[in-house]
Each structure stands twice: as C-alpha cells, then as structure tokens.
C-alpha cells in the first residue's frame, strides 16, 4: 500500500518535472517535422543536427556553470571571434596545427581570465562587465583581421570539424565527452558544490572559508577555454574565421539554458536541462530550414517557445 502510493507520487513527480516537458517538446518536434519536413527523419539529418549544435553546446557548458553561480557572460560570442581568429591566423601563417589550437585556447583563457578578474576582484556585476568586454573583444576581432576573413588552413585541420569516428562526427563526440565531464564536475566534485553554493548564497559561501573570487575567476577562465575549444571546431567547420565570428551566440545559449530550466538568478537548474534546450532549438531550426520556412517565423516561434517553457515551469 505504502509502496504503491510512493510509486504513485514518483510518477506524479516525473510527470510534473520540467524535463518531461522538455522531452515532450522534442517529441512533438520529431512528430511534426517527421511528417512535414522531407528527409528530417534520416540518420544523416540527425547527425547533421548534432553537428550543428556541437559548438553552441560546448559553450553552453561553462555558461550553465556561470548561470548556476548567479553570473552571466554576454561576451562569449566575441570570445569565439577572438579565439577563432587567433587560431586561424597562426594556421594561415603555417604554424603547426597543435600549436595553433593551443594558442587559440590560451587566448580564450586570457580573455576569460580578464572577465573573471574584473568580476571577481573588482566586484562589478558580471552582466555589466561583459556588456563592456563584449564590445571590446569584438573590436579586437576587427583589429586582428582588418576586416578580412582569415582562411587557408592545412588539410589536417579540417578533420576536426568534418571528420568522423565510428560514424559520429568528432565535434559531437567531443561535445558528448564534455557534457559527461561537466556533469561529473557539477555533481561529484567539490567545485560543483562551490558553484551551487555561490549561486544560492555568496555571502555564506565566503563565510565558509571558500575563496569566492577565485572560484569566479576560474569559472570565467573555464568559460574562455571552452569557448575557445568551440571556436576551433567552428573555424574548422567553416574553414575560415572572420571578424563577426560567433556574434549573437550569447543570447542563443542563454535562451537554451532558460528553456532548459536554469534559474536566471542562479542556484538551481541542471546541466541536462541546458542540453535539452540546445537540442530543442537545434531541431527547430533544422526542421524549419528543411521545410524551407523563412527564418522570420523561426524567431517568433523561438520567442513563444521560451515563454511557454518558462511559464509552464512556474505554473
């Protein structure tokens, strides 16, 4: 009797859970596009979707961490540009691929670190700081490229964005590994605890002997690094890097995270929610593209979807 009622409660819980809603939306998308969009339900297209979301997915990981800790980084789009261009310029100059990749990642770490120091040490709100650095880093992109696209990479570099392992695109595999790793960090390590603690109550966290500013700097630096990794896959896929690379990514990712149930004020939400959010947006774009529907409708549908997903959660 008792068992029954508890299993009942569990079922109710599952039904009420936002993840059920998110998976429901994805199922609905599959149903709708499966009927309406030609070639939607093919293995090739599914891989296609995954490949398309892989870069944004990679950036969504540190951004979710930041959102969970009550912060935000509006400069990730510009960081994609800076890192991609750094890496691309070295490749074009004939430097070894490994060196170029490392340099791109180092560039990401540096700009992320700058964000982190301003937020952590000078204690200015992250939103405000990253509005400023967003413009500044984008400016850096223009300075570095003088407006010309950076291209002409060695063939081996294109493997990253275009190659497969066991039928799966490399970028998708990396994305999967990153998500598993990030989930582990969040759930099983002390660092994950610190992120949640700061997101819920920064003061208490500091009073518990945790170096909050250091955690913040680490988070922003990590954000820079992951963004750099994503940018490298991106320029490999695009085979060029230009000054506008990655612009607008920040709002796309934040939208996905919010659809996935991350609390904008920090402290609550799950990584898997963000992933589902990214998936929902990716499938939507792909399906509507396949149907040949104008992107104008895409933005309206995305807006409505965001309201529905978040409103349902609260209601």
């Amino acid at each position, binding site marked *: 009797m008792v068992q029954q009622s508890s299993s009942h409660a569990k079922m109710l819980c599952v039904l009420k859970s936002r993840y059920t809603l998110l998976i429901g939306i994805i199922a609905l998308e599959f149903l709708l596009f499966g009927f309406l969009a030609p070639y939607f339900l093919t293995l090739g297209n599914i891989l296609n979707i995954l490949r398309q979301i892989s870069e944004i997915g990679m950036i969504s990981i540190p951004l979710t961490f930041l959102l969970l800790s009550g912060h935000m980084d509006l400069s990730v789009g510009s960081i994609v540009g800076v890192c991609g261009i750094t890496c691309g310029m070295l490749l074009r100059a004939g430097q070894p691929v490994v060196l170029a990749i490392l340099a791109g990642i180092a560039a990401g770490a540096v700009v992320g670190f700058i964000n982190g120091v301003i937020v952590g040490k000078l204690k200015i709100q992250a939103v405000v700081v990253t509005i400023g650095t967003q413009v500044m880093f984008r400016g850096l992109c223009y300075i570095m490229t003088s407006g010309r696209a950076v291209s002409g990479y060695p063939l081996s570099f294109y493997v990253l964005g275009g190659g497969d392992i066991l039928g799966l695109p490399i970028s998708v595999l990396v994305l999967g590994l990153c998500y598993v790793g990030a989930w582990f960090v969040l759930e099983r*390590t*002390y660092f994950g*605890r610190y992120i949640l*603690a700061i997101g*819920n109550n920064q003061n208490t966290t500091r009073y*518990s*002997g945790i170096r909050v500013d250091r955690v913040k700097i680490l988070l922003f630096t990590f954000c820079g690094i992951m963004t750099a990794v994503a940018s490298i896959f991106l320029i490999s896929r695009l085979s060029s890097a230009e000054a506008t690379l990655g612009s607008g990514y920040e709002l796309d990712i934040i939208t996905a995270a919010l659809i996935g149930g991350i609390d904008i004020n920090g402290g609550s939400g799950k990584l898997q929610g963000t992933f589902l959010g990214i998936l929902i947006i990716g499938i939507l774009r792909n399906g509507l593209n396949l149907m040949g529907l104008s992107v104008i409708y895409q933005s309206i549908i995305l807006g409505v979807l965001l309201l529905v997903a978040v409103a349902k959660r609260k209601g």
Partner: protein
Amino acid sequence: MGETILEMQHIAKAFSGVYALKDAQLTLQKGRVMALVGENGAGKSTLMRILTGIYDHDGGTILYKGQPVHFKNAMQARDAGIAIIHQEFNLFPNLTVAENIFLGDKSVQSHGLVDWQAMNRRAQELVDSIGGTFSVEEKVQELSVQNQQVVEIVKALAANAEVLIMDEPTSALPESEVQHLFRTIRGLKARGVAIVYVSHRLNEIFEICDDITVLRDGVTAFLSEVGATTQQEVVAQMIGKEVTVLYPKQDAEIGGVVFEARHLSDGDTVKDLSFCVHKGEILGLYGLVGSGATECPEALFGLVRGAHGTFLMDGREISLHSPAQAVANRIAYVPPDRHRQGIIRQLSIRFNLTLAVVRRLCTRSVIRRKDEQATVDDYIRKLRVKCAGDSQKVTFLSGGNQQKVVIAKWLATNPALLILNDPTRGVDVGAKAEIYSLISELACAGMAIVITSSEISEILGMSDRILVLNEGVVSREFLRGQADQKSLLSAALMRPDETQGGV
C-alpha cells in the same frame, strides 16, 4: 489608561490543512506594553501577520476599538492605526530618512508633487521628538542599525499608529541601545500607544512590559501581568515543562594557550586588542556597540579588509587575511546573521553541513561519497539535528536546528578555535539550552572557544573568563563567578584608563 483598544479572540489559521493557530487570544490596552512570547513555531508571527492584514484568518474575531474588523492588506491595517516593525527592517536603503517616513503620504504633497521642504521639516521634528540625532536627509543605508530602528518607529508615529507591534526589536541592538529603545517605548506608552513586544529575551520583557501572553502550539497558554509572574514560570509555560538549568556550563579542564592575538586592529572599531584562549576554555567577549566585541571575531576570521595584528596558533605565527586562511589555520566562525552568513537555505542539510569541509573529503577533487555520508550522519546524530533526512532543505528546519547545522558545518572541519558570534540569536528557548550544552561539551573535549553575545546573561552563564571591551581595547577581565550583570555592564561603560588598575 487601561482602556481596551484591541481584542483578538479564538483566532485560528491553517496552512494547507496544518494549524498554525488554533485558539489564540490577545488583548491590548492603551498605553500598555504586552509581551508576546512563545517558542519558534508557536504562532507568534502568524498572529501578528493576521493582525496586520498580511494573512487572512480562518476563524475567530478581531475587535478594534470595539468594532469587528477584517483587514484585507497591510495598507488597510496601517491606515487604521496598526503598525508593525519587522525584525528585518522594511526600509528603503536607497531613499532618505524623510522619504522612508512619508513615502506615499498625501499630506506632504502639494498639487500632486512631493513637497520636499515640508516633508523634511516634519520628518526632522518627528525624529527629534523621540531623541534621534541624525539628519532626515541622509540615506537610510548610511545609518547605523539602531538609527534605522528609530526610523521604523518614527514611521509608525507618522502613520498615527495606536497599536505598534515590535518583532524582536532588540535582536539587532547592543545592550546600551536597548535602554535607549526602552526610553522610546516609555515615551510611546505615555502617548497612549498600545504596544506588542515580541521577544525571546525574558530579562527585557520583565523590564519593559506590563502584561505577558504566552503562545504554545497555536493556543494562548498563559496570560498574566508581568509583576505577577516569574521568568521561570514563563519559560515553563512556553515549553510546557519546568526548565531548571538554563546555562548548563560544566567545568572543563583548562589547558595551555591555543590561540593568541597580539595588537589586533581592524583599522576602525578594534584598536589594539591582545588576548589568548586556552584549551578547553570558553572566553567571553563583551562590550557595548562600537566597543569592538562583535567586530573582533570578524577581524579574526579575515572578514575585514585592512585588519592587522600578530596571531599565534599553537605558538606558530599565522596570517589571517581571508576566511579561507582562517579555516586553513583551524579557526571556525559561527556568524550572527544565520540567513545571510550561516546557511544556504535553499540547499540540503548535507550540502550545508559539508560545505566547509567538502574539499578535504575529496580524492583528486572527487567527493568520496561514503565519507561524506558518514560525516553527515555523524554530526546529525551528535548534534541531535531534528530533520526528515539529510537531503531536507535547510529552510524547512527550525531556527535552532538551522543553527545546529551551522555549528556542525564547523565542527566537521575539526577546528582548534571556535568563534561563536551571537550564536543563539533568533533561537527558541528549548534549542538554546541544547546549543549551550553542546558548547559546554565541546569545551570539555578540549576545544578553545570564543563567544560574544548581545545577551549579557549568556556571556555570564557560559564563559570561563570574560573580557570586557571598551573603545576597541580590553577594559577589564573577569573570571567565571567574579562578575554579575551589574559589574559587567559598568565595566563596559567605563573608559579603559579608569580601570587600568583592575584585575
């Protein structure tokens, strides 16, 4: 005098089927102070929220000036003359004092615009009339806590309040300011205001209140004039049984010096403080506001930028520039503001309890979950934390149990020195006693403990040795049993140079 202004009869209120109030009574008379006491969860705040229109009541009647009333919101109650001063002040820190007093008040508007001159003038008059010494053009965030309280009281006066509810008015005040507050309350009494004084502090109640109402489990359990009862009886009525020893301090074996601070200064209040704490000793720090008694622990824990001094732990010199350094040097700190500094209420007991120690429970950054579970189970059991399980959110615990979680968090780090800054603020009587006996046990087990408190009796009851601070330096030192309330208070009031010959 003695005219009944408000009667609450047979008030009942349930939240999703659970009764918070079953049969509560409260009768207020003009110019009299009614103490409302009860353990946490007894229904005090629910009753006050009903009275001020924030909650609706399910049963019973409220008679105000002889008429049955039914306030739909706080605005209605306030317009009728019932005002409340919450424990957490409801002030707008970014506005001036005058605006806080008159916000939305049509009487200081002319032609639909705010008349700043008239508003400032009238506000200043009101502040002056109860002895406030600050300018009403200052922003509230620039005022001290006690002055903010004065603003709250003036707000009530400006609204012509005839019933004034004060929820734990002294919890944020140092002892000296309490007397100031009492003077203000007496002034209000003389004006014929009926006051409800909600507090845990029996000493204060017996000093300022005329009548006392004890709530227990949603029922009015006891009604009396203050003069006709005793503290023992009130405590007994609150918890439903007789409490004999409130401060269960056992004699612990006091060993060698564990921690020593030399020339501690925080660049502001604390001037030049030197003291040491021994193994197994409870050192009480006592002082009035601005004396450095509450600031000293913060400086020790690395919370104050610009604090300096020489610190020795077990004879080894250490530096304490951040909480992280303090924790690394085996210092633990239970802060006064539990909600903002002690717990993370949205998270589980397990999360809170291991927050400070979780890094040590890791192998290559990964938490050893078995060890974590063992730690959590251990402390929940040892500290007798009443909870539904370690995954329960801390917000659902009572104040006392929340405080136990905070203490457990620190005990888990195995500290050599435990600093308790006002550890029983907002904790009900039953839980207080448990926390006291816990502190005593810890001392017996050989921990060095520093305790500060805004309650003089707590310091007297718990300390092996008491340092009285005045103007940032030690003005006098007492051993256990040497001091009583009077001598402690007078030492705190005396200037340091007058007591140089002391001890």
